């Protein structure tokens, strides 16, 4: 069959093209534009080439923020994924209590980011916060505004509180899809509890867990609001994650050039990690693991 050629069809793509241009392409190109120029005000720009990129690559500040960011994402994944699976495994499988658990667990997911931040900011205060006050009364030195360990602990516990239920809900959905016959067969084969988890539950949950890991990684890698509200990146720079640092640089110091170079590199890092992740995922799928 001959293909019909109709150049007018391009007009149908035009609205999308315009929309994407205004919402993504032009802003992104502006960033690219900033990243290769320098300005001393007055809206006068000078060509700077790759200077800002070189600067950023040699900047300890950025490497430190990246290291903190990677550590943050790694820690919350290492806590939330196993904890989510554990919660899902121990949830009632059906009936009233199952629905009850599902609703209770969805609650943190519905709270806006800045509210979560505010809740924990107050909760952790030594003078009026329940958590801070209690810890202080027990003689444990805890002050997230002065002690960087306490600040990290607060930010991580807050993220775990906010997002573990997402992992648990996804894992629960995966578990629910396993037919009873698998458990019955496992009983007949005299499989141990660990073997049931390892050979039945985990493989059947793998698909949803991959999605959970990807979602949690991306979300945590661009986290901004909650730690900003709680610690503002402090004490010092100890909880200054990538996005907090970027905003400081771009809007606080108004260093447009370095900030633009920074954000492009930030974007490339996310792209790189997502690509690695995707490749590993599809390979696992092919191998049948």
């Amino acid at each position, binding site marked *: 069959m001959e293909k019909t050629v109709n150049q007018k069809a391009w007009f149908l793509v035009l609205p999308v093209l315009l929309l994407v241009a205004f919402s993504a392409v032009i802003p992104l190109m502006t960033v690219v534009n900033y990243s290769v120029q320098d300005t001393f005000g007055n809206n006068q720009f000078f060509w700077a080439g790759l200077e800002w990129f070189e600067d950023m690559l040699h900047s300890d500040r950025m490497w430190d923020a990246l290291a903190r960011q990677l550590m943050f994402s790694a820690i919350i994944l290492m806590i939330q994924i196993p904890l989510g699976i554990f919660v899902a495994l121990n949830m009632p499988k059906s009936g009233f209590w199952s629905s009850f658990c599902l609703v209770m667990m969805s609650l943190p997911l519905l709270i806006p980011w800045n509210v979560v931040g505010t809740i924990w900011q107050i909760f952790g205060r030594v003078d009026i916060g329940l958590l801070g006050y209690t810890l202080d009364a027990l003689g444990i030195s805890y002050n997230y505004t002065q002690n960087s360990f306490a600040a990290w602990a607060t930010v991580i516990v807050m993220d775990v509180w906010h997002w573990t239920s997402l992992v648990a809900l996804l894992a629960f959905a995966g578990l629910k899809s396993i*037919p009873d016959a698998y458990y*019955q067969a496992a009983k007949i*084969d005299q499989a*141990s509890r660990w073997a049931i988890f390892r050979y039945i539950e985990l*493989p059947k949950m793998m698909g949803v867990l991959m999605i959970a890991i990807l979602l949690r990684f991306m979300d945590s890698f661009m986290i901004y609001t909650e730690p900003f509200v709680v610690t503002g990146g402090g004490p010092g720079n100890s909880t200054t994650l990538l996005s907090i640092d970027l905003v400081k640089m771009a809007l606080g110091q108004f260093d447009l050039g370095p900030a633009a170079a920074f954000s492009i590199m930030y974007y490339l890092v996310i792209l790189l990690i997502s690509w690695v992740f995707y490749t590993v995922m599809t390979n696992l799928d092919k191998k*049948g693991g």
Partner: protein
Amino acid sequence: MAKITLDNLAHSYYPNPKSEDDFALKELNHDWADGEAYALLGSSGCGKSTLLNIISGLLQPSQGRILFDGHDVTHATTSDRNIAQVFQFPVVYDTMTVRDNLAFPLKNRGADPKYIAERVQQIGQMIGMEAELDNRARGLTADAKQKISLGRGMVREDVNALLFDEPLTVIDPHMKWELRTQLKSLHHQFGHTMIYVTHDQTEALTFADKVVVMYDGRVVQIGTPQELFERPEHTFVGYFIGSPGMNVIPAKVSGKMANVHGASLTLDRGYTALDGKVEIGVRPEFVSLTKGEGLPVNVRRVEDVGRHKIVRADLFGNEINIVAGEDQSISPDMNRVVFDPKHVNVYVNDWLKVGEAA
């Protein structure tokens, strides 16, 4: 291998069953003889799988006891009962290889690795998957997966019984024959007690030494395929076994005479006065279409199924099926039927009534 005794067994899925209707499995006493192959036959929802799960220990009965060789195992776990069971849908461990799947039940019981390797090879050969032993189970077709499930069921030699819960539902027809034959030869070779649940009468009749027919939570008849065919003890067995099933016609019976809507026919045996719903049952194979004598029928259609013809007719408003020979010609003036008196059974309230020999 063991003799399995069901003593006063019953099961209800309700916590407090009130009437007999609440029981998915009604009171049952039965011995499954050691080393026999049984088929458990019945339509969906008749309690077959419930009974099977009680025997394997996946379900605790509401009342009664189960004994293996005289030992009470009612409260023993599935693994203590040492039973193998194969389910309707394939259960394989996706991430393992076929070999590891087959070895899994042996490994869990701490068998000697050398023995496991040998035994798995043997089973792989039996299910025709020797070449695929080192493939992962995940990408396989449904038949192949079900063959693995069957293999995993057979891998242990010392099991007390092998239970099959409609295992061939997902398998291709030609493969069904092959696997069924293999199961049968396996039975001859090792002499395991086997219980095979199915709703397919051909499967039941070809597989088993004895067929247990269940209806509405009750065992209605246990017998050889021939007994089920010739003397169904319940009208359900008559309907369910045979193709088409037995003709059941309301009648009045006294002495050696049966009266169907005013027309009478002679029976082989004599009956004393019968109370309740009285019916006569006769298999289509023992009904013949004639010209002059017998009960009047109205032939509606003739189906030629290849080996024989099935005549669908109307006898005083009851549907009646007649099996006629493939080369027998059927003419419009053949509007009467006669029954072979030796094969006419009398049912009272659906249960067979055996008359006295004349």
